[in-house]
């Protein structure tokens, strides 16, 4: 069986398997599976408003996925995307609120702030890894908690006077556009999706086409050989964390300058950064893969909101069905193995 054919077949089989097992579970517990999947589809694409919302939801997922994937390609597991995302969110809103500038300066400045904040937040674990070989997973997990409480503190005691959320940013720093809202029937779709797609391209170009990417990937595959070949392993480790953090910070700006327009104190993690891990793994850590994986995640997440109302399926079951689809897509290795076995028998 050709590799190409297999590449199409595997995700299709995965999604179908997820749907089939979900159907069995729903039928067994007495719910209408057709209605449920219809509600899922309609909740994501049945209406231009929902499609706009899907794209909006996909935007931070793409960037968070790119962040995880980028570090992964250099052999680092950046669990800290969540924290970098939160500081990026805060930084973008802070700059959005602190200045009164024309839009063509204000918006780029606020976006830049999120990128720098995320990059700095990731620089610390990168530096500790490069200098002292402290494992980045431990440092980034801790940095997530630091980010959660520091951002809460800054929101409550620096930006506002003991309020739960900041005021909304002015239009001059907003990624939203009345035009995008109008063509999608008031969805919160914003220009961030364009940035996210550009970032996919940047990641692909940087890794695949440049000498820097050649080094980064070499370090990811084999640090010893990279060192032998005269590449600076430490420099590339730090750089990869910084770039990864920059993507994560930018993902934060998508929420701060796009979806919400403000930043609120949080009782717990948002989950965007952690979903980024799943998106990256599902997308095989490539830019294009991350794009489609984010699309799947975003569509499932937004579409699923509609299932309890339109099909009467309880939330818990919805969660199970979504998890099943993701599970089967993620375990495509198993399907690949299966196809290989079957095709081998065929040759005999």
């Amino acid at each position, binding site marked *: 069986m050709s590799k*190409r054919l297999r*590449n*199409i077949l595997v*995700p*299709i089989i995965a*999604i179908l398997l997820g749907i089939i097992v979900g159907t069995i579970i729903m039928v067994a517990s007495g719910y209408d599976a*057709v*209605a449920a*999947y*219809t*509600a*899922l*589809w*309609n*909740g994501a*694409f*049945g*209406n231009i*408003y*929902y499609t706009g*919302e899907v794209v909006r*939801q996909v935007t931070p997922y793409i960037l968070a996925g790119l962040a995880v994937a980028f570090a992964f390609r250099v052999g680092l597991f950046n669990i800290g995307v969540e924290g970098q995302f939160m500081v990026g969110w805060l930084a973008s809103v802070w700059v959005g609120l602190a200045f009164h500038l024309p839009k063509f300066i204000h918006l780029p400045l606020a976006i830049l702030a999120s990128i720098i904040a995320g990059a700095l937040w990731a620089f610390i674990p990168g530096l500790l890894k490069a200098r002292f070989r402290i494992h980045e997973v431990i440092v980034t997990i801790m940095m997530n908690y630091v980010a959660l*409480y520091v951002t*809460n503190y800054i929101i*409550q005691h620096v930006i506002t006077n*003991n*309020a*739960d*959320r900041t005021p*909304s940013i002015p239009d001059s720093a907003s990624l939203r556009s009345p035009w995008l809202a109008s063509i999608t029937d*008031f969805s*919160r779709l914003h220009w961030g999706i364009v940035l996210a797609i550009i970032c996919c391209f940047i990641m692909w170009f940087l890794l695949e086409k440049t000498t820097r990417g050649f080094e980064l990937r070499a370090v990811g595959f084999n640090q010893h050989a990279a060192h032998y070949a005269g590449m600076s392993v430490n420099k590339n480790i730090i750089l990869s964390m910084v770039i990864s953090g920059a993507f994560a910070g930018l993902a934060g700006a998508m*929420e701060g300058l796009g*979806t*919400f*327009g*403000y930043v*609120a*104190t*949080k*009782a*717990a993690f*948002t*989950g965007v950064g952690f979903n980024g891990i799943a998106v990256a793994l599902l997308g095989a850590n490539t830019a*294009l893969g991350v794009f*489609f994986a984010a*699309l799947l995640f975003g569509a499932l*997440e*937004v579409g*699923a*909101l*509609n299932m*309890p*109302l*339109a099909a*009467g399926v309880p*939330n818990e079951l919805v969660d199970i069905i979504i998890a099943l689809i993701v599970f089967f897509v993620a375990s495509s290795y198993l399907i690949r193995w299966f196809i290989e076995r079957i095709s081998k028998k065929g040759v005999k």
Partner: protein
Amino acid sequence: MKKRKLGLALSLVLAAGTLLGACGKTTDNNNATNKGTKNAKPSFTVGMVTDVGGIDDKSFNQSAWKGLQEFGADNNMQKGTKGFDYLQSQSDADYSTNLNTLSRQGFSLVYGIGFMMQQAVDDIAKQQTKTKFAIIDAEVKEPNVASVLFKENEGSFLAGVVAGMVTKTNKIGFIGGMESAVIERFEAGFRAGVQAANPKATVDVQYAASFTSAEKGQAIASKMYSSGEDVIFAAAGGTGTGMFKEARDRKAKDPSKDFWTIGVDSDQTAEGVVTAGGKQVNVVLTSSMKRVDNAVKDISTKAMKGNFPGGQTTTYGLAEDGVGLAPLNDGMPNKDAIQKAVSDWQDKIKSGSVKVPATRAELKTFSAK
């Protein structure tokens, strides 16, 4: 190579699209018929959006859903798009989508449960001007939005009175979830109540910085009990379950000592049951209840009858039965005296002769009498 892969992926998405799209046709028709019937016979429908806690959070959302169910039962409505229903949010980003969905489904009145939804309700109310909205615990100044606030300070004042009269060590604890105006009302009212009933008692105020971390609640409660505090009030959502656990554990180990707790939002008596010294006791003195259910029923009824308080803020206090104290624990000492004191204060607050402070600043100038 790369181009080919892109093509593959696109065709995959399209294939999936047509597949699901084919299934989708039937519902589009259903929707159309739904709309048809609605146009033919406009009836009153009501929906609510919960935050991530969902309708079984033993607190806020649960109380609101209870109110909605009771309203439905009173008016012969069914759960579903033609009667009353709810949507649960999986993250902060979903509030807007869910409010929109309910509005687009044609619900006459849509509740946003919790101050976190303020911005979302504000935005959508401007877009969906035909739908009525109500927001709990926050204010939105739009003509189609009814804002609902509670005088949590009045309920927790009574809890403070109970705590002040029960304590033997004159040391009382308060655990707040996260700093916010709502929790500040709980804190100020509680401290005022303690001060009114027992001027010698001190209140140790701690914030957990979370509404969901039971571990933190337990850690804070443990420290409080260890330092001699014998009554703790947690206005901290799920964080408070940790306090109950700590109190139960300690009571089971040391039945002769007092480890009292006070619940919040709904009657949390069930959280306090523990077997200590061979008999069943309860460590929950009472709960400072926030009757979201009453408020939801009230606003829904008004809306159905055509006098929806759009653009207004309705504040529910003791007098409106919007806050209150759960029945007192039979196991507490001097129950009758305490019950009487609570009733007295309740009358004074209802009559307006005592004004309960709502902020720390007001607390400073508060004097009980």
